């Protein structure tokens, strides 16, 4: 007999229900931005031609969170360094709800400080998009690779 059986209902969700498969997609899996200049700001959606878009492939609405992340050492793209400061990258929204099978565009602004130490550098930064409040969630990491003249 167990010493304590406390009726603790431990779960990833209320029930093992047959939830439909679901996931997320983005057109920005990896994006390479070159010829940037120090002291300037860039609207990456405008420059990319195809704006940063997240698609909800779940058959229900999901809450999404976005965060700019520094790459860990083992994640670094060869030839690139971690971006010196994640504040260089600004998203116009960091949390929102997306309806079933709908998509959302997120504006991405990149600002390079006016400091010559950054000239000639190549930097790597992530944008992490993930579901929130789901027991088994999904996420995407969009790799942003920038080169400064």
């Amino acid at each position: 007999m167990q010493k304590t059986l406390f009726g603790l209902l431990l779960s990833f969700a209320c029930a093992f229900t047959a939830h439909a498969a679901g996931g997320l997609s983005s057109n920005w899996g990896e994006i390479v931005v070159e010829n940037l200049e120090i002291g300037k700001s860039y609207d990456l959606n405008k420059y990319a031609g195809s704006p940063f878009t997240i698609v909800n492939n779940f058959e229900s609405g999901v809450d999404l969170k976005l965060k700019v992340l520094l790459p860990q050492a083992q994640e670094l793209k060869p030839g690139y360094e971690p971006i010196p400061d994640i504040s260089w990258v600004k998203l116009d929204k960091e949390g929102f709800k997306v309806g079933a099978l709908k998509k959302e565009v997120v504006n991405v602004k990149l600002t390079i400080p006016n400091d010559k130490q950054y000239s000639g550098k190549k930097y790597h930064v992530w944008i992490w998009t993930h579901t929130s409040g789901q027991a088994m969630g999904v996420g995407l990491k969009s790799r942003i690779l920038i080169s400064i003249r």
Partner: protein
Amino acid sequence: MRKGLMLVLALALVLAPCAAFAATSGQIAVTVTITQSVSVTVTPNAYAFGATSESATLATAADAFTATNDGNGKENLGITVADSANWQAATAAAKDAFVMNYSTNGTTWNLITPVTGAQLATNVAKSANQKFGLQLLVPTSTDFGGAQQTIGVTVTAQAS
């Protein structure tokens, strides 16, 4: 003079379709290349362990979950775990602290490190999938007996 102006306008019209991925900033063309999209699906998106006791070890089948690469290139899959309302993800079970492990073969269980997570799979081909299971080490004691705990696990895809 007039001829020159017409030539410039004609060139602008010819070049316009190329401007989508190369915009100018001052004298320098900024080029942007999107090299890969990324997409992932995980099913099922919930699992209930049900009622349990302190210090228990609970596990799903090793193939309970399937993560599928729906993108257009190879992907690496990472896995992270979040705290529940009352319990913290940890590296060892303790009072109100749980451990979440994953397995892709049902034999070896690997820790999902709190905050940083773990690598679930690398170089998963387009349209291929990775099956996995989860193992939960329940806290050794808790002040929240009887309260359902919802633990979030997230599978994140990135271009390989």
